[in-house]
């Protein structure tokens, strides 16, 4: 009898205690389902936590609650339709996903995108990064009990979405850009709105920082909570702000520049020990750096076409379709998805809202990818979550999770 219960004790990873107490100890462990529909998880994923009172003893994650089989769907969709799937991965920063996908296909097809399109893409991607980070940091504030900052920041997110609307016609599921460039040029209104945004946002962000950065209550809740060392983070495969918070200045935009990022000047913010406070600070600073990039890009926006000269891949002008036989043929071929894609494998990564967002594309020359794999940073962060929350309290685990910025849509694809 007694030995049986001791067995349970070893199974649930409870450290062996001296002989007189283990029985009560085992019975005191509580299984707690954090999620799938828990108000504090910001998405649909589940954690099965073993709790000893307020302390977390072990955790196990379940994923797949909003698995939509994007990789499989992509295998029977022509290249240009897959953009709509990428919209729905990290829905806080869908333009980055869209652009990443376009660049992957352009790499496969060997299209050189003109400078103007590259700069427009940079502007949109950095706006998306700001939108992503401000949600993450605002929500972190909410989870630590400060609703105010979130509310004030959200007004600016609305303004970013209005810029999206001006550029591509939608706010959340943007479907922005096309293979070979952008679908339309920046309109004067869009440029005006972007300029207004970079004028206005520093004030809002500074106010947000005043509320949080040196706030004792906030620091007590976040400093030394959910830390991860640089070595552990690297061996999990962390990238993005969460890795930079641990002190490694790895940024795809700098290490492997794409879309003219090498022409912009910006710093890579790093933290000290990879805890929640570091992640918060790194994200805040990245918003400042993004603003810097947008400012440089909008002020030096090159003239010229905004789509590549690749008639067999980029839809021809409608006027041409009426008059020109060749344009009509290309129009039909592109829409039907019958473009001539070369056989090959490409990998392209962009610095997504929360890490290296990679697209691994195998093409067998058909109309759709033979196989497409998304390297989704959230999927990797979520694996490390139990390790990061073991030993902490439940409220700390929630703060840790929200600062990791795990987004269910990207986690499950």
């Amino acid at each position, binding site marked *: 009898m007694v030995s049986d219960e001791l067995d349970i004790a070893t199974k649930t990873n409870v450290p062996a205690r001296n002989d007189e107490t283990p029985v009560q100890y085992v019975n005191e462990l509580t299984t707690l389902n954090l999620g799938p529909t828990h108000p504090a998880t910001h998405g649909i994923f589940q954690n099965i936590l073993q709790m000893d009172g307020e302390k977390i003893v072990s955790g196990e994650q379940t994923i797949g609650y909003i698995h939509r089989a994007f990789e499989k769907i992509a295998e029977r*969709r022509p290249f*240009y*339709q897959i*953009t*709509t799937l990428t919209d729905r991965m990290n829905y806080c920063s869908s333009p980055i996903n869209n652009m990443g996908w376009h660049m992957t296909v352009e790499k496969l097809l060997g299209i050189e995108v003109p400078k103007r399109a590259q700069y427009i893409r940079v502007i949109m991607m950095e706006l998306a990064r700001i939108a992503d980070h401000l949600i993450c940091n605002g929500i972190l504030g909410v989870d630590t009990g*400060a609703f*105010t900052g979130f509310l*004030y920041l959200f007004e600016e997110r609305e303004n970013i979405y*209005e810029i999206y*609307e*001006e*550029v*591509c*016609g*939608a706010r959340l*599921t943007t*479907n922005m850009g*096309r293979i070979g460039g952008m*679908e*339309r040029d920046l*309109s004067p*209104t869009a440029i005006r709105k972007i300029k207004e945004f970079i004028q206005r946002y520093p004030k809002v962000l500074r*106010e947000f920082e*005043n*509320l949080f950065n*040196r*706030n*004792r*209550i*906030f*620091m007590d809740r976040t*400093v030394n909570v959910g830390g991860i060392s640089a070595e552990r983070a690297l061996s999990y495969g962390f990238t993005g702000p969460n890795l930079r*918070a641990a*002190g*490694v*200045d790895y*940024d795809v935009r*700098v*290490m492997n520049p794409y879309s003219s990022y090498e022409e912009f000047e*910006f*710093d*890579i*913010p*790093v*933290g*000290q020990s990879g805890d929640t406070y570091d992640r918060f*600070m790194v994200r*805040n*600073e990245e918003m400042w750096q993004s603003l810097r990039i947008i400012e440089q890009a909008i002020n030096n926006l090159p003239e010229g076409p905004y*789509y590549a000269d690749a008639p067999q891949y*980029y*839809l*021809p*002008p*409608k*006027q041409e379709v009426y008059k020109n036989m060749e344009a009509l043929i290309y129009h*039909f071929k592109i*829409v*039907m*998805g019958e473009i001539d894609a070369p056989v090959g494998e490409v990998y392209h990564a962009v610095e997504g809202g929360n890490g290296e967002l990679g697209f691994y594309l195998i093409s067998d020359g058909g109309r759709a990818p033979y196989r497409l794999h998304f390297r989704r940073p959230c999927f990797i962060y979520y694996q490390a979550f139990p390790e990061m929350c073991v030993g902490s309290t439940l409220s700390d685990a929630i703060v840790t999770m929200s600062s990791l910025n795990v987004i269910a849509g990207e986690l499950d694809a």
Partner: protein
Amino acid sequence: MQLTNRSKQVSNKEMTMAEKMYLPSIVQGLAITIKHFFMKKPTIQYPEVKRYLGPVFRGHHVLKRDEQGRERCTACGLCAVACPAEAISMVAAERKKGEENLYREEKYAAVYEINMLRCIFCGLCEEACPKQAVYLRHDRMVPVFLERDDIVYGKDKLVERLDDRYVRMNSEVKATPTEPSLTKAAT
């Protein structure tokens, strides 16, 4: 670990004496909140006040007529192929004698349906249409539906009404390859 020369340490976890006291940050937070009481409200009273939608907004679908009021669609099916959500279906028919004032081409769509539950408003149908027949209007959104039967929009809801023509007129947005303007020349 240092990989580049662009890194910048941003986190400082040492608190000063003033920061260690709770009160200043509480007062500061309250001050910011109170300041916002007296600022302009960013919210709008939605059903009464509608916000401005961009000139390229992707809203309600419309099947355009040409300037003589004939339907432009020729039931070629390109929009249905381009639709990533497979929301569009149609049945083609041949134009009879005497119907020249109704349909522009010899073949037309007798049935044209868009399943609004499937549609994701991506705008790819608009780009695909070689006849500039289907558009996503920028001034109207698909309303909330309460009945299942209302979800599939047929031609009665999609074809532009003659007394309610849709023109996407915005001098700022130039005609672009993928988004034709709806000026006179195009219709």
